């Protein structure tokens, strides 16, 4: 008897739950997101796919903003709290975001681990989720925000660098990024 067949025979005798398959809800959802965004990008292109994801991101941002405000019991979150929220919400979904700097002008965040894991590679539209969620939360509390994704893992960079301006920049960044306003 062929050895492989012999092994197969042995495994087929096991129950499904005994199998070492790497599958949990998180992985499933991340895969689902990756496939959805991939399909969207293939069908309508990156630009338009980003438009769809922005719509989703805005709703997620509004939801999370309400959650954090309620927990802080604040009508509006000040910039430092905003920075904490942005790092925290990423940490809760297994992202590796850290606060690089903060002043009245902007919050700079870096990231070494994407919440979507390696599924984000080649899926730049998913980064729009981060931009929209960050921009929505910052604008709802600050009245205005501008998010510039300077480096992204999705684009092949080693890590992400995200700048959240709290007032319109006047330097080179004036012409980059996406602006967000209080709804």
């Amino acid at each position: 008897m062929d050895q492989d067949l012999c092994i197969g025979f042995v495994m087929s005798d096991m129950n499904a739950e005994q199998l070492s398959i790497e599958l949990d809800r998180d992985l499933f959802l991340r895969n689902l997101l990756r496939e959805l965004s991939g399909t969207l990008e293939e069908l309508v292109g990156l630009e338009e796919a980003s438009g769809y994801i922005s719509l989703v991101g805005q709703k997620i941002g509004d939801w999370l903003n309400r959650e954090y405000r309620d927990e802080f019991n604040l009508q509006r979150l000040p910039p430092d709290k905003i920075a904490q929220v942005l790092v925290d919400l990423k940490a809760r979904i297994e992202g590796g975001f850290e606060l690089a700097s903060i002043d009245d002008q902007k919050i700079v965040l870096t990231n070494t681990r994407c919440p979507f894991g390696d599924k984000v590679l080649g899926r730049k539209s998913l980064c729009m989720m981060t931009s929209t969620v960050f921009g929505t939360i910052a604008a709802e509390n600050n009245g205005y925000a501008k998010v510039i994704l300077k480096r992204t893992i999705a684009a092949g960079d080693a890590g992400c660098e995200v700048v959240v301006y709290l007032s319109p920049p006047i330097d080179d960044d004036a012409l980059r990024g996406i602006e967000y306003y209080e709804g």
Partner: protein
Amino acid sequence: MAFETLRRLIDSIPDIFILVDLDGRLLAANRAAQRQFDLPPALQGGIELASLLQTTPKELRAALARAGRSTNPMLVPLKWLKQREDLNLKTFASRFDAAALPELGRMVALHCSWQKHGTGQFSLLNRELESNRRTLVKLLESKRTIEYEHQRSLITLQSIADAVIATDRLGFVEIFNDAAVKLTQVSEEQAKNMHISEILEMVEGPYETEVQTPLEACLQSGEPSLSHEARARVQHNEAEFIISASASPIKMESGRVVGAVMVFRDISELHQTQNQIRFLAEHDLLTGVANRHQFNRSLAETLDRTSRENPCSLIFFDMDLFKIVNDTAGHQAGDQLLKDIVRIIRSRLRNTDLFARIGGDEFTLLLPGTNHENAVNLTNQILHLVKRFVFRWDNHAFDVTLSAGLTTIEHRGMDSSEAIRQADLACYVAKRAGGNQLHCFAPDDGTGRSNLNEYNLLSEIRRALDRNDLSLNFQPLVDIRNFEVAFHEVLLRMTDSRGLLISPAEFIPVAERNGLMGDIDLWVITSAFKTINRDKQEGQSLNLSINLSGRSIGSKELLARIRELIARYEVPKHSVIFEITETAAIENIDTAIEFVNEIRELGCLFSLDDFGAGFSSFKYLRSLPVEFVKIDGSFIVNILKDSANEAMVRAIHQIAHALGKVTVAEYVEDAETIDLLREIGIDYGQGFYWGKPTPEPQFESDVSIETEAKSTKLVAETKLTLDRA
């Protein structure tokens, strides 16, 4: 400026761009949006976005609020009213802040694009392909139509009889049809490399000045060149013909001339025919000089330009004794004589002079720009030349002379008929003065009563002959023994232009002097024969006695005409007697005998008229082959009172009878005279006793024979004599 540039840019793209405020009021829309939703160019915030949508206002507000929160374009689920079912409009919206216009506040930019994915793209592609396919089908159809039209045009072009040449804008040949090949003897292949001027050149006018072809004129002016007649010369073989040509430019829609087409045909034959017709209408066929019509026209034109400084002279020529030539040598000789005279006169003329034949032997000569003296000199030269000329025909020689009348006009506007009348009257005076001379018109030419009377009478005779204003009367000639009407003498009557009767005693001498008796005799003979024919058709046998003038005796032309008329009107044998006077007969007795014999061979009889009034030579009576001797009326009128007359009548009768001829007494007016004539033995009588001349022949005499005795013996003798004749 940048804003304007941006607006123009947005206007130029096919996607829809709409700018609204957060309440949904339209602030601006690009052209695509204006077209799609029928929006006015200037919106001014008066239009609600909701009015363009099926989306509820609540949903719209929520969508705008969401979009207004980010500059990142976001899909908004709007359902447009004018959205086509097969093509969905997908709408993205984002916040739009115009930094230059802060007063506008927060705005949302809506960007609608046609669905680009899935079936939409396929549908678009299908739509495009279908559109392309339809365009292609139309193109193919157009191509087929153009090819068909092209073929049809080519076949039409090659089939038509007219030559067609089409060139480019520089005049180089592009189309050269079969008719053009045939006409020019240049092949289509040769022609296609040539300029029109290398194929044809056109010349005009007496000096054959080279002119542009209509095609070249048309290329130059850009306007059609209408029907044009000119002489064309083919360059390669120098063939020439008259062509009728027209040309039209070929223009693009912009009006730019890109070529021209010339259509032409050879009208040389037509031209020649027209020239011939024109020549025939304006010239005398026998002599080739102008005819009366052409002369009158030119004369009127010349008189219109005449002045003291620019006088003109008019000469009227009439040949003396032309009738003699015509009658004795025949009309062919007469025709030749006319040609010879024309040749002689023309040898003295300038190109500007106009010479015409306006009647049988009448000519007119118009000398424009010629004064009286020069005209006199020229006319005398002509008369001299003609006088020196001797006309020879069949061993006969005739001396020919002309009479000429000259008038010189030195003022403008004289009527051409008056000018001709003056020259004619002057010619008449020259003729009356013996002929072979020139008479210059003087105002008193017409005041001499005899001249004027005779001239006027002559005009009346000519007019009566032209207009058939002559008529015949018939007087019976009765058998004295039984009073039966045997013949009628035809007597000529003429009315003038006022309708008044003119006595033959007046007009016959004038006609004789002016050479018109031949025409008059012919008219009388023709009318008499027609009457015989008419009565014959009606079952009535009519015998007529016709007077012939001395001029007609010996006329070969008249003889030919009598022969022709007898045949045409089927004149029965012995139904016509020709009366000739004794005087005329003996003037040229040999000719008269020959003439009489020739006519007798045609079945006609002859009577010697007025015998006793002239020479009364019984010798001639013996030699003349006549059946009747008509004793001159002057012997009869007084026969009862004058015994010498009675003796004369008896002698004539006896001699005539002895020679086998029948006697006729004229001017018989009473019964006593008849008794005496019967006693003498006269056969026939004529006079008022039996009847006056009437417009129609009377077949019963006015007097019955019942009162008279009958002489059957004489009747038998007369019949015997007639049968012998």
